[in-house]
């Protein structure tokens, strides 16, 4: 495709592409996101493509390999339009039937429909499925419209219209005003008002300025940024272009985790395509605006999610944060004024420009506007990516969308906000997803991770997990984080291994508060949160570990023993053969015995036993 030299040429291209697609009667959307790829969706894609071509349907049916649809647990997922038919757990062997029955004859294949694990009811369309029905998918729903590797798809779907509008008569001050009025707050964790950030950067003196997209989603257990960047990279680029126009930047960076190979690849392709069409480069669409983007691959350091550390990393240096006496909007990348927002924040920008700030602000609570994407995972029925209006309660997300507990085990808590957030107990589930409400309760919205925990999750172990994560990831620059987190981990390890003393709980609290007051960067300041929040809401579990030397959830290895439930065991002997430590012995058709001296509690026998006969006490 040739370079577009004016807004009119972009509109002509859009009309031409729409015209070309007029004859398409059916679209088959197969998810090619990381989750579905892990469930072998590539083989499904190949099989459907082959089948379409052998039936001579290449011209009238569009096969669209899309980004993440969100319902990863059900992958590989296919949606067929018209009809909004939703098929899950599709295998390559199903391709013939899908093409022959559904695409050609419009018949629905019952066995591929989603079945509600609770009621057993089957749903024909995507929009009827409870997981989707209760959501408000403003950003995620765009993923299904486009092949992330096709700029044409994005343009047909109305892409780059917000950029045209901005270049066609909105002043930089006007853009900033619109973003400020929308009430958009940073989706990366801090919840800082984006409009204020942009406005400070616009006012900061200097010719050279930068915009950065933070796609270094280091929060373990969260993957919304991966899915948005991987599934709709042009949306992020368009957001960044508008931001660059607003603050007066000519250069931008997408800093993306190298652990997300597909996101790296798709954003690189998107940048190349945008350059080819002249949407990046000199005099974009014939205007005076020039802007280009480079992709910087992250080195796998959690601390690089912190803005100053991230900027050091783009400069090719060790990613250590620095004190923010002067904010990065004034003194950022290469000491120039820099606006850094995360993927989801940028993704919201084009729609705010197109639909207006009041449209955006119509959703949400008083101080948290718009929608939020959450990564709903852990011990719950429906795991996946969820987008809801701010203000939705945790209960609605966990039970209405997530479908509640697996295997009937009661849900105990939800962890929000990753290593900087905290664990909230069930009696706090009426709290709204709102930046301020969750912070007051001792947790945070963070980037949107929501890990559900049930009775088989030990809260002390969760706290220990986050501490070891943070100790491992601490960059080591400031003492409170480097040494303080280490000491906290020592204490918690003592507790989980049966050496805990009652007075250590107060010491943990005191240490935690000291770290949060004295650490250098935001990640250090929030590092004690997982411990402080579990101490606040689940103190009894700590006490059981210390006083009774017992792990109520059956997780902490030093405090549990494995045994065999004679009532459930049928003497099949699978565990005897499975145990690599030779700890299980017994005769055929008899209940075997576990030698507790030899048993390493590795869990192999538990996962091999089909009768759930291995008990943990």
């Amino acid at each position, binding site marked *: 495709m040739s370079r577009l030299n004016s807004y009119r040429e972009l509109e002509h291209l859009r009309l031409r592409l729409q015209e070309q697609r007029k004859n398409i009667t059916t679209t088959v959307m197969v998810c090619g996101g*990381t989750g579905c790829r892990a469930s072998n969706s590539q083989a499904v894609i190949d099989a459907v493509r082959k089948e379409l071509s052998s039936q001579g349907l290449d011209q009238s049916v569009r096969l669209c390999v899309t980004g993440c649809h969100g319902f990863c647990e059900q992958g590989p997922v296919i949606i067929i339009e018209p009809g909004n038919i939703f098929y899950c757990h599709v295998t390559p062997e199903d391709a013939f039937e899908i093409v022959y029955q559904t695409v050609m004859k419009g018949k629905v294949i019952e066995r591929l429909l989603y079945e509600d694990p609770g009621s057993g009811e089957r749903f024909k369309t995507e929009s009827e499925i409870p997981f989707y029905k209760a959501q408000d998918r403003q950003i995620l729903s765009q993923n299904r419209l486009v092949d992330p590797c096709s700029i044409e798809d994005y343009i047909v779907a109305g892409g780059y219209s917000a950029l045209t509008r901005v270049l066609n008569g909105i002043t930089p001050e006007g853009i900033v005003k619109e973003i400020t009025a929308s009430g958009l707050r940073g989706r990366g964790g801090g919840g800082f008002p984006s409009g204020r950030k942009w406005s400070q950067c616009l006012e900061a003196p200097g010719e050279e300025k930068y915009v950065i997209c933070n796609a270094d989603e280091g929060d373990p257990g969260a993957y919304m940024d991966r899915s948005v960047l991987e599934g709709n990279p042009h949306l992020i680029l368009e957001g960044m272009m508008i931001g660059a126009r607003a603050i007066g930047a000519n250069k931008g960076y997408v800093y993306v985790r190298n652990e997300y190979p597909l996101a790296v690849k798709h954003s690189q392709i998107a940048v190349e395509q945008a350059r080819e069409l002249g949407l990046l480069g000199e005099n974009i669409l014939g205007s005076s605006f020039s802007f280009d983007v480079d992709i910087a691959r992250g080195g796998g350091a959690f601390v690089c999610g912190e803005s100053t550390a991230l900027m050091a990393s783009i400069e090719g240096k060790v990613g250590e944060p620095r004190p923010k006496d002067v904010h990065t909007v004034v003194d950022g990348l290469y000491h120039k004024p820099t606006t850094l927002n995360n993927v989801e924040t940028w993704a919201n920008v084009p729609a705010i420009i197109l639909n207006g700030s009041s449209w955006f602000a119509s959703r949400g609570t008083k101080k948290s506007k718009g929608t939020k994407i959450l990564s709903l995972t852990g011990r719950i029925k429906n795991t996946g990516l969820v987008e809801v209006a701010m203000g939705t309660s945790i209960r609605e997300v966990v039970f209405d969308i997530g479908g509640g507990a697996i295997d009937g085990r009661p849900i105990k808590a939800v962890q929000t906000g990753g290593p900087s957030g905290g664990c909230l107990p069930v009696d706090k589930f009426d709290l709204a997803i709102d930046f301020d409400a969750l912070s007051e309760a001792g947790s945070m919205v963070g980037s949107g991770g929501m890990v559900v925990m049930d009775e088989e999750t030990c809260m002390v172990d969760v706290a220990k997990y986050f501490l070891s994560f943070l100790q491992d990831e601490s960059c080591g620059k400031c003492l409170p984080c480097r040494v303080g987190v280490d000491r906290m981990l020592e204490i918690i390890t003592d507790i989980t291994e049966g050496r805990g003393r009652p007075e250590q709980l107060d010491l943990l609290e005191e240490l935690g508060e000291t770290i949060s007051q004295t650490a250098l960067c935001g990640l250090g300041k929030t590092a004690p949160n997982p411990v402080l929040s579990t101490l606040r809401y689940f103190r009894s579990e700590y006490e059981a570990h210390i006083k009774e030397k017992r792990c109520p959830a059956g997780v902490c290895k030093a405090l549990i023993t494995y045994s065999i439930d004679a009532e459930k065991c049928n003497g099949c002997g699978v565990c005897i053969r499975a145990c690599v430590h030779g700890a299980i012995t017994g005769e055929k058709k008899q209940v075997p015995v576990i030698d507790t001296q030899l048993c390493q509690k590795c869990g192999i026998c538990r996962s091999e036993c089909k009768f759930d006969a291995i008990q943990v006490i």
Partner: protein
Amino acid sequence: MPPQTLDTILEGRRSQPSQLIEALQDVQQNYGYISQEAIKSLSQGLGVPLMEVYSVASFYKAFRLKPAGKHVLTMCTGTACHVRGSRLLLDYAISQLGVKPGEVTPDGLFSIEHVNCLGACALGPIVSENGSYYHHMTPAKLRKLIATLSRQETGGDNDV
């Protein structure tokens, strides 16, 4: 795709210290690890002191300073995988293969790594073997995976 040489990796990046991490990523991708030779060559090519190249290469988790095993088993230890038992998988791999994360088995076949999140949280616990994802893993499934990979290797030897 034939591996890029250090010279090709440095092309267009010479005397640009800010390209250090990008160059290291390419070295790692092409050679599997960052050798002493690569560190020296990047230092000269980009104009970054040797000490700084080493400091950056050792700071970031993504870079390996020693060669990896033929099969790299990467355990995801993100929160979602953790609450579904990924710790048991890591413990099992360590005890079965007799090496710690970051080390290689004496026969050079396996190395164990752990990563904070692979971004497929809904399908956890995840184990990746040279980039292919295995989802909903259990210690029993991991045992079978390691056994299958080992068998492939010994079978391959017989063919030779």
